[in-house]
């Protein structure tokens, strides 16, 4: 069953076109990693999926319903939640309050505060600390926990490992791996670290200059093919030829 499909999405920042006609479809429980160089349009694509950036063309369909015209909070209630770039915790609110906001404004479901604390055990002692006092890894855990508490069908995670220590990256992916195992949630993950992305993804989507350069299962491609697509080398060579 198709959970989410994106059809010909185009996004603009003023005169600049950041996303040029991206299309893909995801089954329920599937994990997609979006890779690509800085400025390739990954974050804009994620924001567009969450409803934080308007589509200039194309549409987004969730479980057969066109959600293109819905605002961010309305999409969250339909089941699309996001942990945005920069985590965007509310700095002067406590971790508990940050989590509660998603829990009480999102959907009801299996993900409760207790379950989030079980998945990210480092959060338990931090609950009453203001979010601005957390370390990078703790912030990421809180941001993912916050998105999970909205009980989404589609979880969007932007820049999962950016700015985290190797140990923190491992911790986050361990927790995400457990969620993936349940196959209850479709995930779209933006990941700079190719190794992490290839290990975690069911499918990868490589974006270059706003367009899809490569799409498929990680084993379908050689490492060289992927890194060529990543840096946009493949396209240039074929254009020269």
């Amino acid at each position, binding site marked *: 069953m198709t959970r989410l499909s994106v059809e010909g999405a185009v996004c603009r920042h003023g005169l600049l076109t950041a996303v040029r006609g991206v299309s893909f479809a995801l089954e329920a429980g599937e994990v997609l990693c979006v890779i690509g160089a800085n400025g390739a349009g990954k974050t804009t694509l994620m924001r567009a999926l969450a409803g*934080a950036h308007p589509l200039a063309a194309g549409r987004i369909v969730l479980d057969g319903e066109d959600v293109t015209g819905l605002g961010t909070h309305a999409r969250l209630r339909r089941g699309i939640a996001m942990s945005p770039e920069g985590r965007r915790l509310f700095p002067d609110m406590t971790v508990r309050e940050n989590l509660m*906001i998603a829990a*009480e404004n999102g959907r009801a479901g299996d993900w409760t505060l207790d379950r989030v604390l079980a998945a990210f055990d480092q959060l338990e002692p931090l609950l009453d600390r203001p979010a601005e006092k957390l370390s990078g890894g703790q912030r990421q855990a809180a941001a993912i926990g916050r998105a999970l508490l909205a009980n989404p069908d589609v979880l969007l995670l932007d820049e999962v490992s950016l700015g985290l220590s190797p140990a923190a990256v491992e911790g986050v992916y361990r927790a995400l791996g457990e969620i993936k195992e349940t196959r209850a949630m479709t995930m779209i993950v933006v990941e700079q670290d190719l190794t992490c992305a290839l290990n975690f993804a069911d499918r990868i989507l490589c974006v270059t200059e706003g367009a899809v350069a490569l799409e498929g299962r990680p084993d379908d491609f050689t490492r060289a093919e992927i890194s060529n697509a990543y840096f946009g080398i493949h396209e240039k060579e074929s254009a020269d030829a």
Partner: protein
Amino acid sequence: MLDGTAQALIQGVLLGGYYAIIAAGLSLMVGVVRFINLAHGDMAVLGALVTITLTQVLGMPVLLSILLMLPLMGLLGWVMHAVLFERAMKGGLLLPILVTIGLGAALQNAMFGIWGSDTRSLGADIGSLAWEGWFLPGGIILGKLPVIVFCVAVLVIGGLHLMLRRTKLGRAIRATASDREAAEMCGVDAARAHRAAAAIAVALAALAGVFLAMRAQVTPYSGPAQLIFAFEAVVIGGLGSLGGTLIGGIVLGVSQSLGGLISAQASLLTGHLVFVAVLIWRLGRDWSADHGGWHAGLVAQLARRVGRRESGAEQ
């Protein structure tokens, strides 16, 4: 003389309660919606006039009139925010000022058209409350009404604080104030949170207006003065801080009350001057923080002046 000062001090503190109520709504809007409604004072007057009409024309008990009026005014605040303010806020920094000052002019004159120019008061409708008081040692009189207003102010500020900390709506309002987009990503309807804040702000202004009408008179043109007092209290207390608003209200009330010992005119002027002094102090503090302290800042400024003159001489 000393008794007079003590009396003035106490009256000033109690008057501060009134200012805190009218400033609380303004402070909430400045703090969480980042919006200054220049018609805030006119909302207070409208609330007062509606209450007076319900009481004096329809013959309702005062308390019932107030309880009926508050939700009506809250609803008005909600609708105004949805229809006018949201659109104005999308148009940049200047439009909200233009729209709300226009709204103030429209409201004042429409109220004049409806209610006429007579000064009106609720003083006659609250019986002995208007003049009764407690006598303290030293000849100090504690008016019942000012004490009630002050208690309501503490309740209002405390209640707002608890609402923002402990309720779902409060957390949604705070999250929206902190990062609107991130709040939306948590499922918060930011526009709704803003409208709710506007409803609370207008209802609080109206409540303050009722108290104003109980202790004094109101006319359709009393609003701008109330906005100015509210703004002064908010600035003195620190922009956007609720606890500060109570303190700001008290400082303003005490300044006016002490100034009143000199003359009735001096009362308003003292309040304005305290406001200006706080503004100068705050801007000075920011300036000194930006320039690495007073001393270093002044030296740097001086050096720049001299440098400019020298380079001018070379040309």
